[in-house]
């Protein structure tokens, strides 16, 4: 038994109850993070217990990784050495929900799919659509800052998280923001927690603005010969008065992986020639009733080339959207050595970024798949057929890092199929706010109790 294991079991068992501290290697295997297993998994039941654990860890110089459903274990998060996982799934209540105010206060361990069920009873939902949607928790979704196709219409968590409570590295429960839809009292500290991967604090409560559920969703699927053609349709939609819910462009292989059967059915029925290999796919979802739907159904095909767009009815549209939302898990599943880059560019640069990616992958003979969101976020998946092609993958990653040198855009390694595998290239950055980010980390977690270290992704 390691020092960490014994110190934790001896001291925290009395606080949490012995059943809430896992030290058995079999149980701990489930907490494998970045290829490493923690010495213990601690399962607090309240924010006060979290605060106590953090204070204890600080005084014993132990380090922690907050976890939820552990669906992000394939995310590429630089991590310092850690001793224990802080498993948040027991802290899972809906603290307050006022449907008539469209506001919600919820604890982090709750599964998002279950929360959506509660909201659906009142005709509402949260436009969070993380990968692994059936299992992901609220806390993990927010802390990892993962996005979703719905951002096209609703924006991201930073646009509808109203406030938060969290435990900082000195073991204090702190809040910022509030539970009303408009509020400028104090600094928006909670924005820093979104996408911080638990490196600044442990989220113990999130306040959201909720939205009326989407009814009568439809989609168009359109096929193109090149990325450029698909992106041009994206531009035409952006310049129109239409406000679709989602807009994604899939490379030929990504289209095949996510939508292969669906697209074939839709296209074969409606388009002469049907789906042939090598096409880029644009999926655009929209919703409304009556004349609003008619308007979308009339106008979107006009923005595609004649006969190029096929309408998907509600059921098929939902399936297609769900698959696109799960692009990352699908891509990870498709290759044991998958490395997925996240490229953020201005919309006018989407086509160039896709071309650069294709070139870099093809040159190294690595199969690839890409999904570009209309807002300018691209998930570019390098999908080597077997492990061991690491040097080729590294070269492709480096090429892409170099293709986007300025601070206007960014490239990060977002996910990988074998998080315990060899280390991946670091990114040189021209950003000059890294120093402030390091100081933010110090302000929140002066003793570095929290092991995730997203800032270590750069040199």
């Amino acid at each position, binding site marked *: 038994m390691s020092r960490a294991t014994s110190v934790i079991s001896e001291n925290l068992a009395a606080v949490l109850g012995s059943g809430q501290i896992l030290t058995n290697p079999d149980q701990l295997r489930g907490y494998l993070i970045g290829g490493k297993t923690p010495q213990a998994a601690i399962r607090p039941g309240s924010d006060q217990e979290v605060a106590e654990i953090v204070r204890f860890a600080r005084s014993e110089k132990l380090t922690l990784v907050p976890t939820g459903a552990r669906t992000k274990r394939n995310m590429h998060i630089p991590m310092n050495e850690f001793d224990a996982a802080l498993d948040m799934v027991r802290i899972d209540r809906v603290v307050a929900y006022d449907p008539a105010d469209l506001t919600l206060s919820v604890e982090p361990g709750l599964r998002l799919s279950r929360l959506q069920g509660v909201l659906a009873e009142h005709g509402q939902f949260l436009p969070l659509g993380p990968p692994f949607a059936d299992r992901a928790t609220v806390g993990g979704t927010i802390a990892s800052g993962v996005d979703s196709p719905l951002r096209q219409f609703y924006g991201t968590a930073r646009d509808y998280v109203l406030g938060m409570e969290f435990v900082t590295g000195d073991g204090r429960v702190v809040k910022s923001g509030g539970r009303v839809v*408009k509020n400028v009292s104090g600094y928006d500290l909670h924005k820093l927690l979104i996408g911080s991967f638990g490196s600044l604090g442990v989220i113990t409560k999130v306040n959201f603005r909720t939205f009326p559920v989407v009814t009568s969703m439809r989609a168009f699927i359109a096929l193109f010969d090149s990325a450029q053609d698909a992106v041009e349709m994206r531009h035409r939609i952006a310049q129109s008065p239409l406000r679709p819910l989602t807009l994604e462009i899939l490379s030929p292989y990504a289209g095949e992986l996510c939508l292969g059967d669906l697209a074939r059915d839709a296209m074969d029925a409606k388009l002469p020639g049907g789906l042939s290999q090598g096409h880029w796919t644009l999926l655009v979802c929209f919703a409304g009733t009556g004349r609003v739907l008619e308007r979308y159904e009339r106008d979107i095909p006009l923005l595609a080339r004649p006969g190029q767009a096929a309408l998907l009815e509600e059921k098929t549209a939902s399936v297609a959207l769900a698959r696109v939302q799960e692009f990352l898990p699908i891509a990870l599943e498709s290759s044991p050595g998958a490395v997925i880059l996240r490229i953020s560019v201005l919309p006018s640069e989407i086509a160039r970024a896709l071309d650069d990616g294709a070139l870099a992958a093809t040159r190294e003979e690595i199969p690839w798949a890409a999904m570009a969101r209309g807002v300018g976020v691209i998930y570019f998946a390098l999908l080597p057929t077997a492990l061991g092609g690491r040097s080729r993958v590294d070269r492709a990653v480096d090429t892409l890092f170099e293709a986007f040198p300025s601070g206007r855009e960014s490239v990060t390694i977002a996910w990988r199929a074998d998080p315990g595998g060899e280390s991946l290239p670091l990114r040189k950055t021209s950003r000059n706010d890294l120093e402030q980010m390091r100081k933010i980390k110090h302000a929140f977690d002066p003793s570095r109790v929290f092991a995730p270290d997203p800032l270590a992704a750069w040199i």
Partner: protein
Amino acid sequence: MLSQPEDLLLYEYDGSVEVARPDCVVFPGSTADVVEVVRLAAQHHVPLVGRGAGTGLSGGALAREGGIVTSFARMNRILEIDVENQRATVQPGVVNADLSLAVQHTGLHFAPDPSSQKACTIGGNVSENSGGPHTLAYGVTTNHVLALEVVLPTGETVRLGSAAVDPPGYDLTGVFVGSEGTFGLVTEITVRLVRLPEAVETLLAVYDLVDDATQTVAEITARGITPAACEMMDGWTIRAVEDYVHAGFPLDAAAVLLIEVDGLSEVVEKEAEAVAQVCTLHHARSVRVARDTAERDLLWKGRKNAFGAAGRVSPSYYTQDGVIPRTKLPATLRHIGEISRKYNLAIGNVFHAGDGNLHPIILFDQRNKQQFRDAVSAADEIIEFCIAAGGSITGEHGVGMEKDRLMPLLFSEADLDLMKRVRGVFNPMGLLNPGKIFPTSKGCGEIYVRPQPAGAVRSA
């Protein structure tokens, strides 16, 4: 640079009731100038305060502890308009409405629209995280800011965020917006531009009872309808405004709602119908749809000049900015009515009803000591009610030097302590905008009101 007392007089005020005189005012013309100013101030340990148009409503741009006011009046160029990507990069002194005007021909606009938008600057909007009537559907300033160039009190120039979405690392842009000039001086701002709606309908619903108007707002919210704007004016405000602007508001009404829906014409048609239905259900005496742009503009002119109108009819007034959950709107307005009767003070209500963001205007005569004390007590009771209802002390005006004493009513010592540590990341010596946001004396929650000078005009 200005340093003569008569010149400095102008910089003692902003749109709030606060007064503080700087030792000098400087007008940098570039980021390099700002760096020079900051270096000098740091060298001599002189407080430094940024200032846009001085329309702020919480004393954010006032030199509470003296020192140098840095006016961005000369840094007022639009640096880049990128129509294809719907972005613009501006200097901080660009007037809010000027940006929308500059891109109007491309079918785009800058969505945050504070009532002072014809004067207020985008730099000021960033510092205060300003709102406005149309933020109900479009979001406040923070939802539209993508990147900033800022000069820190250390003299460093730092770029936060990026024109592309989702820059990696911590969301420093997000925490910087709304930091009320306590983190750094903003020298460049990249914002999102939003497509102008294809169709707009503006409805004026007239009520004989305030309660019916507030019930309407609560029900519009509960039904999940999000109008572009949903503003309320009570009878007192209507009469003050009508006397001033002649917008055509009915003088005998207890309240009106000004509701705007926009977007695709089919969406607008449907939502306008739904809104009108809810208004009628809650006993609106009439629901009128503005026939054309001229009529719509006149109604908005009435709304946006409400505070100016208040200044014309009362020797002094004090406005608050509390926020409540929207379901509590009827109860809150009833409570404000009770407070008004209790102290025998007129309180006008004109506010962003759809957001639950109140702006009660408490009228009093500053020469009457008892009335002044009563106004303070009334303000106190209203804000306590907001907090008890689960709300906030400020929705869009900022904390500044006006509501700093209220912060402990919302935040614990641990909360405020972390906020101060984050301020220390950017502004370690406290050189920038000292005496703002955080209570100067510990544990004190009392309200602090200075009378509005007679005839002064301000907006919200």
